[in-house]
């Protein structure tokens, strides 16, 4: 199942729609890698709201994706981890160390704005609105 990736300004948003197999996750990794390069995206949001389990493989892969995207100049934030899923992950000792996390898409965008110092206000006073 391919994961749709949307472009929103400087950011890419990957919305996972259904349970992913290992292969799907790897495809996602490749897709994001390519897209970040193509669009010169500075931030990537991966929305995992739908996932009912994030196991060791998924955790490893998400970390690997974040690491790889960082090398390509993009910041990654994982959003939408559900309470039960977060609980199971910490029980298993799985952490997403080094990867940004936020509650949902809205928070994810705010996170990227803050982290990347994206200013919504005018940077160049010379520009009129």
């Amino acid at each position, binding site marked *: 199942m391919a994961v749709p990736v949307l472009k929103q300004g400087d950011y890419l948003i990957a919305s996972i729609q259904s349970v992913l197999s*290992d292969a799907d996750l790897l495809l996602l990794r490749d897709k994001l890698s390519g897209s970040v390069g193509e669009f010169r995206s500075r931030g990537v949001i991966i929305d995992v709201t739908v996932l*009912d389990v994030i*196991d060791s493989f998924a955790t490893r892969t998400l970390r690997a994706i974040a690491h790889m995207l960082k090398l390509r100049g993009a910041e990654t934030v994982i959003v939408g981890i559900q309470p*039960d899923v977060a*609980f199971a*992950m910490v*029980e298993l*000792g799985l952490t997403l160390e080094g990867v940004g996390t936020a509650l949902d898409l809205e928070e994810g965008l705010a996170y990227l704005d803050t982290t990347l110092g994206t200013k919504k206000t005018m940077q160049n006073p010379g520009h009129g609105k």
Partner: protein
Amino acid sequence: MESELHTEIQSAADIVTARQRGRTLAMEIGFAGVDVTLVAAAISEIARNIVDHARRGEIVLSRVENTHPHSRKGIQIVARDEGPGIRDVVKAMQYGYSTRKGLGVGLPGAKWLMDDFEIDSQVGKGTTVTMRKWLH
């Protein structure tokens, strides 16, 4: 109502199948909230272990009932493979959650999530893991 649910584990896709079935059965038995996720996560790790080390095996899900210390219901998961077997079971089970380095959590991870956990492994013959979680 099935008495036993068998899932062949041959590829990574089967991991998802096994844990979805586990999730469904857990809910049918009466587990709620976090416990369902823990059961699914444990199955995922065990199934993944089979895929990574044994290449193929099966997972059998069933309902269980107990009378001691008091009447209770639970879910049982048996994971069998004819893989290489584990040479040092004790050592394999030591890699604990508390080290926090572990991302290949497999057996110790699953054990931590469940109530009962038994493992029987012979080098050259294979491994059988039996685990249960009880409704409290």
